[in-house]
């Protein structure tokens, strides 16, 4: 009943529930840090929140710089689009000529123009929706800090209030399991966030060093797509691959870029992923792979991301059930 009501509310008011969910994820990420800073002999709540505000204020500068750089990258990309179109058309023309020479069939296809016209339509639609996006960004800028403040201040009280609705017969188990789930989810989000930051930073810095174009936007894409297990690194690699493929600049080396992505993903797979995510989530690698496939079938991209903490939680749940059954037998 409670779950149905919550889902109904979430679907009815997405403008409210989306920033609410986002704030909850940020809260889960920051909670262990707050515990460390606000407990023990050094506890200073005022100091902690002051430092947090100061940190957020100064963090805005690199963030804005990244946005600025990303914007310049995007601007230069859009300026280069006609050139890219020309290169693609030339390459396709060569393919058509070779095809005619070999098989004697004339290809009457023009996929490049078709793709470009589609991209133009999408681009125009995107531009038309930008004011709506901006207004929702301002709404989020107002709502997320507000929700975050109340999560930090009232979360335990709110949780206790929610728990009063649980029947006495299942209260103890439900409470302990919900705490386990929250802990697992929080730890998983932190691990993935750290992993994405490490990979994104590694790729940005390395691309800067080898002088590859658009290092900020490519590093950002690599970091974000890294959240997706297994296929994420490949998706993150594709934009850089196409830039290197289509580039006429002799300074841009395909091999240098491949080595950068290869080493960054190798570090991620060999060091970061096993040390952070697997240890925290405590699942066998085969279970991780199988659950990601199941997650993609059940809920697409979102399913792939959220399946791991759910599986980790179900492991605990099954352990509890097994414990109960082993006593009853």
């Amino acid at each position: 009943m409670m779950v149905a009501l919550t889902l109904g509310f979430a679907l009815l008011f997405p403008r409210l529930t989306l920033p609410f969910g986002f704030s909850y994820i940020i809260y889960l990420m920051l909670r262990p840090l707050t515990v460390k800073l606000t407990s023990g002999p050094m506890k200073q709540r005022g100091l902690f929140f002051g430092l947090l505000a100061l940190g957020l204020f100064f963090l805005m500068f690199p963030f804005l710089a990244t946005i600025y750089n990303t914007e310049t990258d995007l601007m230069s990309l859009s300026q280069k689009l006609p050139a890219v179109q020309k290169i693609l058309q030339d390459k396709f023309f060569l393919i058509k000529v070779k095809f005619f020479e070999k098989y004697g069939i004339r290809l009457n296809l023009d996929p490049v123009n078709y793709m470009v016209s589609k991209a133009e339509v999408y681009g125009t639609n995107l531009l038309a929706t930008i004011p709506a996006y901006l207004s929702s960004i301002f709404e989020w800028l107002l709502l997320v800090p507000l929700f975050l403040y109340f999560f930090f201040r009232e979360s335990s009280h709110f949780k206790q209030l929610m728990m009063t609705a649980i029947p006495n017969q299942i209260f103890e188990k439900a409470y302990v399991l919900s705490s386990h789930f929250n802990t697992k989810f929080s730890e998983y989000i932190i691990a993935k966030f750290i992993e994405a930051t490490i990979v994104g930073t590694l790729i940005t810095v390395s691309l800067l060093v080898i002088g590859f174009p658009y290092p900020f936007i490519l590093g950002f894409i690599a970091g974000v797509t890294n959240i997706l297990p297994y296929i994420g690194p490949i998706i993150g690699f594709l934009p850089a691959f196409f830039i290197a493929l289509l580039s006429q600049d002799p300074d841009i080396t395909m091999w240098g870029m491949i080595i950068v992505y290869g080493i960054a993903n190798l570090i991620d797979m060999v060091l970061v992923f096993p040390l952070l995510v697997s240890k925290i989530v405590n699942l066998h690698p085969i279970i991780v792979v199988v659950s990601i496939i199941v997650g993609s079938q059940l809920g697409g991209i979102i399913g792939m991301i959220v399946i791991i903490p759910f599986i980790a939680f179900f492991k605990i749940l099954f352990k509890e059930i097994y414990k109960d059954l082993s006593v009853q037998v």
Partner: protein
Amino acid sequence: MSYEKDIMEKMESGEGPSDRLDIPILKYLWDASPLSFGSKENYHEFFKKISVLSSFSDNEVRIFTKYLHRREFSSDEIIFRQGDSGYGFYFIFNGSVNIYASQKPNSEDIGDLVIRLEKRQYFGEMGLLEEFNRRSASVVAAENTVLLGIFKPDLDRMLELHPVIGAKFLRETALIMANRMGQLTRDIINLKKKVRELEQKI
């Protein structure tokens, strides 16, 4: 150290009361006031009279009560059964409970009455400490009862956020268990004595 003592010491050392408005002290005074009708105030008075928390200062009791869950049980409602997984420690805030033990755990029969616990008494402390605890007896509300429970996740959180209070509470819980063990040892000695007497008679 209580707030009263803290203020007295400051006054004695010549510091004098601060000009600034001290919100935690105001909050404490509001919570602790006998004229306040808030439920937390009742908890505060309740725990001040419980021997287990006698070493807690006023402020520590106030913080401790934040971790508690209020659960209401109607008469004859089962609080937990013998053999269930246990995660919590309960204080009887209002009403009373009966404790039953059965030879066959997890059966429908809850067994024989062992003891009746009244207001300000407590049970279930093993559930808080043991990794895989099984309830050693069934507990049933003897009348409409209000319990204040603290559970494993609460204790973990308390140890993280308020380690001194958490450690004090753990020490008190260990003392309860030590007392129960002592009682158990005395009971076993008495039973053995009775068995020997019966054997001699036969």
